[in-house]
């Protein structure tokens, strides 16, 4: 493998990993606060991609306007999911909310089949993002490969600033620590939870849009596998931890791309690596890389 190809793989892994990371952040925020695996998160990701398809190809909006519209619409969908399917179950046993999440996931996927049909659709790729740039030494990269990680890091950086330097961020961290006490401190818990869902959905929308640009098509079940992978990334990095989710996503991206790059014969097992990695880390560090240790008080 020469340097040129290695750099291609590296950039590829970086952008795949940061996409996983962006989605994982949404899982980790919701889980950190509600202890709920939001199975519908992968489908929110899919909606983001579809809204851009509609905005640009069906309604002929300029690409940038389409992206902004799509992010806003997806965020609204995320908020609606929380309001309709999760909020009535806040006091219920956790399994109820989990089943509700599975129901929502089924609903969104199949609703997409009904409305958009099961056929894959093409995606508008702005030429400026796709035109390869030549670097010295014969390295060729498309701007999209660089744009994806940059966007992801900027967004997650912004989220970290929000979490650690603002009042709503403080409230969010407090809720994940103890929801009842935070409520007694006068924090409007439901608004903060909605904020978490909104932010998570917006990030998932951005990830979905960029995912669709990489594999230029959208289809109703496109969120399933990236969704599960991103959740693995979140667990891997230590669920509840935003930087952990990003790191988990990146590691997963690198493992997937590099294992296939170095051992092409094992490409059929690509998806198994992610799970194997997950089980390994759970066995040796049960709460993930950056997760906090929990113990049952006797």
């Amino acid at each position, binding site marked *: 493998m020469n340097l040129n190809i290695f750099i291609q793989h590296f950039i590829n892994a970086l952008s795949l990993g940061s996409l996983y990371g962006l989605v994982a952040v949404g899982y980790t925020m919701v889980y950190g606060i509600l202890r709920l695996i939001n199975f519908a998160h992968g489908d929110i990701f899919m909606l983001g991609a579809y809204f851009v398809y509609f905005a640009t190809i069906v309604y002929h909006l300029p690409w940038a306007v389409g992206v902004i519209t799509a992010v806003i619409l997806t965020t609204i969908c995320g908020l609606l999911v929380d309001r309709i399917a999760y909020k009535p179950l806040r006091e219920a046993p956790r399994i109820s909310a989990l089943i509700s999440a599975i129901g929502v996931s089924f609903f969104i996927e199949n*609703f997409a089949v009904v409305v958009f049909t099961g056929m894959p659709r093409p995606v508008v790729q702005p030429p400026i993002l796709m035109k390869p740039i030549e670097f010295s030494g014969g390295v060729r990269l498309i701007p999209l490969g660089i744009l994806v990680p940059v966007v992801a890091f900027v967004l997650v950086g912004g989220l970290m600033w929000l979490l650690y330097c603002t009042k709503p961020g403080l409230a969010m961290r407090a809720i994940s620590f103890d929801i009842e006490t935070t409520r007694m401190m006068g924090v409007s818990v439901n608004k903060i939870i909605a904020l978490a869902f909104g932010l998570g959905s917006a990030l998932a929308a951005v990830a979905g849009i960029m995912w669709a640009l990489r594999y230029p098509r959208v289809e109703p079940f496109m969120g399933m596998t990236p969704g599960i992978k991103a959740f693995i990334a979140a667990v891997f990095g230590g669920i509840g931890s935003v930087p952990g989710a990003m790191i988990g996503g990146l590691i997963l991206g690198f493992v997937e791309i590099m294992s296939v790059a170095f051992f092409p014969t094992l490409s059929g097992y690509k998806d198994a690596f992610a799970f*194997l990695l997950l089980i390994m880390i759970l*066995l040796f560090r049960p709460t993930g890389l950056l997760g906090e240790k929990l113990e049952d008080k006797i």
Partner: protein
Amino acid sequence: MQRVRNLLLTIISVAIFALFLEKAPTFLNGYWQRILNLIAINAILALSLNLIYGMTGMFSLGHAGFMAIGAYVSALLVLSPAQKNAMWILEDIYPWLLDVNAPFIASIIIAGIVAAFFGMLVALPVLRLGGDYLGIATLGFAEIIRILITNTARLTNGSLGLKGIPAHTTLFMSWGCLGVVLLCMVCMLRSNFGGVLRAVRDDEVAARMMGINTFRVKVLAFTLGCFGGGLGGALMGNLITTIDPRMFMITQTYNILMIIVVGGLGSVTGSIIGSALVTTMLEWLRFVENPITIAGINIPGIPGMRMVIFSLLLIIVIIFRREGIMGMREFTWDIFFPKRKAKSQEKISESDTVLEVKDVVLKFGGLSAIDSLSFDIKHGQIMGLIGPNGAGKTSAFNVISGFYKPTSGTIKFMGKSIGGLRPDEVCRAGMSRTFQNIRLFGHETVLQNVMIGSRIRQKYSWWMTLAPFIFTDVIREDSAVRARAMDLLSQLGLADFADDEASSLPYGAQRRLEIARALATRPKFLLLDEPAAGMNPQESEELLQFIRRLRDDFDLTILLIEHDMKVVMNVCDYIHVLDQGVHIAQGTPEEIKANPRVVEAYLGKGAA
């Protein structure tokens, strides 16, 4: 009498149902027969996952993987060599596999055993994880199994799958299998071993203190559940006649999980009702995807609509009736007849000499919770362990009862070293304890809580509970245990609450129940962690009498932690004082009252 009646009713209804199945092919078309078959298979799958999750509390998302194993094992065994030869196109089949063959019934049993074997392999490492992490790890394993099946084409024909599996799954087969599974499971869950499973679900820590090796119980339940998964998968393959890896995606597990939750988590009856409901609904809803003509207007079928309606119904059920149809209740014939209660008697006594703690040190990282603690307790003594908050009293209890391993030092119980033993082993040695924050098995009845304490003194093995009518020891020992539990309850004034849910008792009664449960393990030595916490002066006065009576009636030696000085000074023969992990004083109550170091530890320097 009541039992005979219920048995008769059961036999009659099974016979009627068998007659129905016998005649079914004459009046039901293939479509409805298929639905009936699917109901039975889904019920087997739901029961097995319910055993893992609903009964034992292990959140597993791996069932589809074990189904896949079962389906492939059975299919490979029943397919003829000629069929196999024709099917493997892309890669050659392993030659040895060509001639491996077994009759259908044997094949589904082998399928279950192979799935159970893989289940055990998975369980041994991952069951150390709890909660959602366990769910994710099992999901991971299921996916790995699926990917392995896709990639080992010489064994499984890869992504092409297996076709032309003989349709061996008849109505009698699927419902017969369900009947056997149901019978074994109901018997097991009704025995005291079933109580142990629920105890592990409700409070693992307390279960360990009842002498239960919870890890072993969990591995066992998981393995048995996987057997059911494999069996269900095998039946499914032989019904549909075509299998491929995509059939066993996570969606398959979700379906089973939905059945359990809709039916009622932890309810056997619920799993069967849930299966009937969800299966019928999913099949029936297919009509929305087919074109139909109503009053001359042609409505084209809408692909995807079936799952949209189904998922909406699911969300509505979960929001408005989250405990499912049955909750945790079960169907019994008794609901058609008025109730009665049973009572009986038995007596116990045991004795010996007791505990020696020597130079015990307990450190968490650099922090030392206990700094060199030594004391011993003689038979029949009531000893107090006191000290301000954070003194290390509960840590000392946790070391003695095996929840923490001492960093150094020795603990001898009745002459034998117990330092480093697990809680369940310590319990078997004859020690029991209560907890500062009461840890009852909240969903179980008062009586069942006490019966679980007796499990370690029973001799029958778990597998006998699958067929108690053959291994009658199960019935005999369980009824002896029930009698003894009732006896304990009446001695502690709890007999009237025997059938109430433990969590519904008033606080004081819960504390007494915890003691009753501890006594059920037949301890020689009892540790009480703050028995008077939260009691008013009159209640703690009663407690004084009660603790003395405990010692005399049950021939116990008692070590207690207590903040209520009145209780401590009145009931204890001897007292040890800890402060910030240091053993600062010991003596009779009078000596302790006069000791300046104790007063200083409680009230601060200068107070003395």
